[in-house]
């Protein structure tokens, strides 16, 4: 093995050790959200999905796929479900440090 190759390998090895070991040394620790933040992310995902559902229903009404009556019932139900998610979002937000 030639010296240059050996030096390259040693340098790469040192860089890899530095990359993977940095979090373990506590230096430059990455900010990781707590479990409450995970819950918020989950609820945000549900909220976006619910909003998308409400928008789709509205588009379905306007393009004639849903009757006014069906849309009224559906929209009321979807908005009630969205309210539950928003309440849960606020509760989870209050738990954040």
């Amino acid at each position: 093995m030639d010296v240059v190759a050996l030096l390259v390998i040693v340098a790469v090895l040192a860089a890899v050790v530095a990359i993977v070991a940095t979090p373990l040394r506590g230096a430059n620790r990455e900010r990781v959200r707590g479990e409450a933040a995970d819950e918020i992310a989950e609820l945000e995902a549900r909220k976006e999905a619910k909003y998308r559902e409400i928008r789709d229903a509205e588009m379905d009404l306007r393009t004639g796929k849903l009757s006014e009556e069906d849309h009224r019932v559906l929209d009321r139900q979807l908005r009630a479900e969205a309210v539950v998610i928003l309440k849960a979002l606020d509760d989870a937000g209050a738990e954040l440090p």
Partner: protein
Amino acid sequence: MATVGRALLILALVVALYGIAVSLYGAVRRRDEWIASGRRSVYAIAALVTGAFAILEFAFLRSDFTFATVASHSSTTTPTFYKAAAAWSSQEGSLLLWLWLLSLWSSLILFITRRGLRIVAPWATAVLLGFAAFFAGLLVFKETPFALLAVAPAEGAGLNPLLRHPSMMIHPPMLYSGYTLFTIPFAFAVGALITRQVRAADWIRATRRFALAAWLFLGIGILLGARWSYSELGWGGYWAWDPVENASLLPWLTGTALVHSIMIQEKRGMLKIWNVSLVLATGTLAILGTFLVRSGILDSIHAFGASTLGVPFVILIGLMIGGSIALVVWRREALRSDNRLDSLLSREAIFLLNNLVLVAMAFVVFWGTFWPLIAEALTGTRRALGPPWFDKYTVPLAIMLVLLSGIGPVIAWRKATAANARRNFLLPAVAALGLGAVLSAFGAASRPAALAMFVCGAFVVVSVGQEFWRGVGVRRAMTGEGPLRALRSLVARNRRRYGGYLVHVGMALLFVGVAASTAFNDARDVSLTPGQAMRVGDYDFTYARATSRVSTSGSGELEKISFGAVVDVRRDGEKIVTLRPERSYFPSRDVEGLGAVGRFFEGEATSEIGLKAGIRRDLWAAMTPDIRKLMPTIEEGDRVFAAAAGKLPPELEGQALGAALSGIVDRYIQSKPAATFRVISSPLVTWIWLGAIVVFLGGLIALWPGTDAAPRRVTARYAARVAEDLGRA
């Protein structure tokens, strides 16, 4: 450099094993620093494998024949364009490409989710690192791309001539991107099942885009492969139900089902068992696809690598199947649906039906592909199932699929009433049936399956067109925008929906092209001599004259001998086009026992087709020259060069060989040689490629980040906030 490359791969393997251990430890102990270290292992592997891949590419580009893989898959005469692609024509290079893409995509998803998914992500990291360790292990212990030769040959064997086609530069990276991207939802599904987070919407939202990208890349890869088959393999078709083609189609079919059914879970919390099973099956089929391409276990025109990788792959696939089933059974309670299907007349029901059709197609393709192995196990004889068997089952399923892709866009979520359905189906149904009646009057009824596909395709195009028309109308009424601006904002507000609709149109065009070109093509195989003609459909093909040439590389080395034909095509006496099909012979690199002249006819041979592509019809011709009359001359040349061996300086010998080959090609033309032609007149083939472009555009639109991708902060009272949030979007 080979030493450095090998060291980088060994390091990648060690880091992968380390990453698995620390990710699992961090996940179990809830230790963020260990989880972060595991995630950084993936980044480190991406950097290491990028380095290894760069070293291999560099070796190919400078024709470093001390590398065994470069010597066996490239040559100084290989054009630079193809030298770069030659890396993944080899078994080792292709496995390295797989690992490289896996490490890049894994790094991307873990970077995106680095501040979230704390519970699922570490397990997913361990699974992704497990795949990385598997492929790094193969590259270190079984198929190293950095093996060196004791004595470097002066010249390499060259790239397989069949692979010298522009689409081969992109086809394998696209397929492998699809395969590797499908492992990401697989890894997160495993993590979600282990941690009981299967009800969570967050991991689905994070990986959904990767599943869609996988579907898109794999689809592009499949279409590029079909295009290569059509223009390079000389049989005139684009799909042969070949095992390797089927292997790529399997995860694409289940992935198509997945990108639809995942919407139902997002919206309604339904089909969780189905979705997670699709994710796991698609990930497993992606590995199976890699295995079939690289193992040579099934006979295939595409199997460029037969190897001894069978056992490790079978173990991995066995683990994936067994583990997937165990996880789904273990978490079956958590996978119960939140809601039930409200009505059979709803978009959910259509999606479900579409999923069943797609999975049925996948089952047919799987059964037909593996039948040779099943038959061998049962009867001791290997029997393959041909295209007629596949067509028998897939054609009706494909017709149903296209019809459903037209119904889906015009039916409401949850529950559609009969009156609404009538209103939305009337125009597409009348237009489609009207087209069917017109086509029947022109004779299309003689091919009922094709006619059904045309009717369903028209239904899709009109129903999607109607959706865009009405959507634009709604936008204009709401905002007063002009038509184009309204169309742009309509799509921008819901890229997934309208990108998806465009994909449906593209698929309808593609299937119409397949149906027309399969049902109404005229093909003939005829032997002609110059001056003779044959009739194919409405066209007269005349073999006007023979052509031949010797090609040399940029460095002046003899590269190939080509024998061709000039074919004039006329319709009703009027000249339409001149086609120039050609057959090229590349010298065999195996010089043992072969003469200096004869070896030019013992190596690989490729077909350059003559093609006039049009929006209505393709005229396609391939030829195989009758070179039997040349054999005495070739044998005489071999004898002369054998007698002169060692008596001439190498440069003079090269010149003499060039002169001898030039004499042969001249004699070929003078002999007015016969040639066997395969000529095809095929309608609407171009629609397949145009449909693929539309699918690609639609997929890009659906993938593009939308305005609702960024989570918004919530501040006002709940009910008002819902309205306010919706009004803002």
